[in-house]
Every structure is written in structure tokens, then in C-alpha cells.
């Protein structure tokens, strides 16, 4: 599991030349050093949240496959469970 500090360094490495805001019409401005640091920390937390969500989804899927394998070993299908109202 990646720590917050490790993720901050990963995202900092992805954006070595700073960050910017704006649009094509009025142009772009570079974020200040403080704004850059605040944004990197916010993004690091966001990416950790995404990683946790993906890991949880994988865990659910694996648990489902394990349960299906156990049922198959007993000769029970998911249709049998539906027939029982489960």
C-alpha cells in the first residue's frame, strides 16, 4: 500500500514543471509554489482513495469467484440459490 508521502512524490515527479490553470481564451497561469504543493497533496489523497476503491472492488470480485467455486464443488449453481430466494 502506497503511503501519502510516497504518492505525493509520485505525483510531484509526474509534474516536474509545475501546474497551470486557465483556458485557451484568456490564457494560462502557473500555480504558485504554495498552490502547487496544496494541489499535489490533494491529488495524492485522491489517488490513494481511487487505489483503495479499486482494491476493494477486486477483493469483492475475488470473494465472489471463491464462493462460486465452493458452490460448484457442491454441485450447486447460482440458479439453485435464486430458486431458494437467495
Amino acid at each position, binding site marked *: 500500500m502506497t503511503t501519502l508521502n510516497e504518492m505525493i512524490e509520485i*505525483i510531484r515527479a509526474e509534474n516536474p514543471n509545475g501546474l497551470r*490553470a*486557465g483556458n*485557451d*481564451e484568456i490564457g494560462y497561469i502557473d500555480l504558485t509554489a504554495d498552490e502547487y504543493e496544496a*494541489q499535489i497533496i490533494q491529488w495524492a489523497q*485522491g489517488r490513494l482513495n*481511487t487505489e483503495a476503491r479499486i482494491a476493494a472492488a477486486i477483493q469483492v470480485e475475488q470473494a465472489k469467484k471463491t464462493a462460486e467455486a465452493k458452490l460448484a464443488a457442491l454441485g450447486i449453481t447460482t440458479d439453485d440459490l435464486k430458486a431458494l430466494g437467495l
Partner: protein
Amino acid sequence: LFRYGRSAFFVADSAETTGLKWAAASSGALTLIKRASFSNVATTTTTFDSVFTTTYKSYLVNIETVSAATTSDDLQFQFRNGTSTIAADYYGLSTLSQHNSTTWTFQGSSGATAMTLTQNLVAGTTLAFWVNNVGGSTSTASFHGTGLAFNLPQNIQTGGGLYATTTVDGILFKSSSSNITGTVSIYGLATA
């Protein structure tokens, strides 16, 4: 619809027994307020400031296209009040379904610092949503809409609001952990 020079016309119902009757086309109920493109930005910051006013009661936010540098990112928005970004009290839910799965993914925002519209911000993502209770006196802003992450493909349904009574006159877009690129148009809906 018929265009002649700089004027547009449409065929109207007519009592004429022969020939065609032409009438000037309506100016339309939706009025473009702001359209902007942005490339590799951390946020759109002030780009969509002052778009919500007392002129309209409902606004259509059309995200024509948007993508993130990290495609597993979420697309988020925050309302703006003057030069301040509102970073609390977002409640809502986005439901996502992909073409190869019968499973729904639920992405909730509960008292969040930003509203999450969708996950997996791949190229070709597009969304349109209505925004109400903004632009006037203090109120509780709300939104609802649909979208598509074309490159997955993934359908998106979303809705929610800002559960705080405040004035909202702008909106800001960002992703959960990287730069975004896209084009957004905002329209006002006439009531008459």
C-alpha cells in the same frame, strides 16, 4: 429548416392551399453563456465564474469532452461564489454501468469537498447536466444529468446538490489526481 443569407426560416403550418409559407425561426430557448476549452490544467479556476445569474432559473452545463492525464481519475466539480471556491457540503450519487457488465457502480459524495460526477476519466468522456437554484439569492444549488465515457463505454447518471444555503454564480472542474483537458459550454434556459 431553411437558411437564406444570414437569416433562418422554417416551414410553418399554413392555411395556404398551394406553395409554402415561411416564418422567421425562433431565437431558441437555450442561450449560450460561456464556452471554453482548456488543456492540461489542474483546475478550470475562474474560467466559468459569473455564469449563473438571475437571468435564468435553469442552466445546462454541457461537457462536450473531457479527459484526465490519469484515466482512472474521477471527474469532479465545485461551485463558486464570487472568487471563492465552495469546498464543503456536496451530496449526491453517480451510477455507472459498463457495456460488458450487469453490475452497477455507485459513486457517492457525502458531505464531500467536491462533487464526483464519474470515475475513469478516459478520452471521449461527455456529460450534460442541469443546474438549478443558482445565480440568485442564497439557495441550495442542485444538479442532475447523464453522460457517457465513450472509450469504455460507460453510461453515467448523476445527481445531487450543495446542501448549504449559499449564493452560487460559477462552477469549477477538476479531476481527483491529475490535469484535465476538455471543452465545456454553459447555457441558460429561458422560461418564456
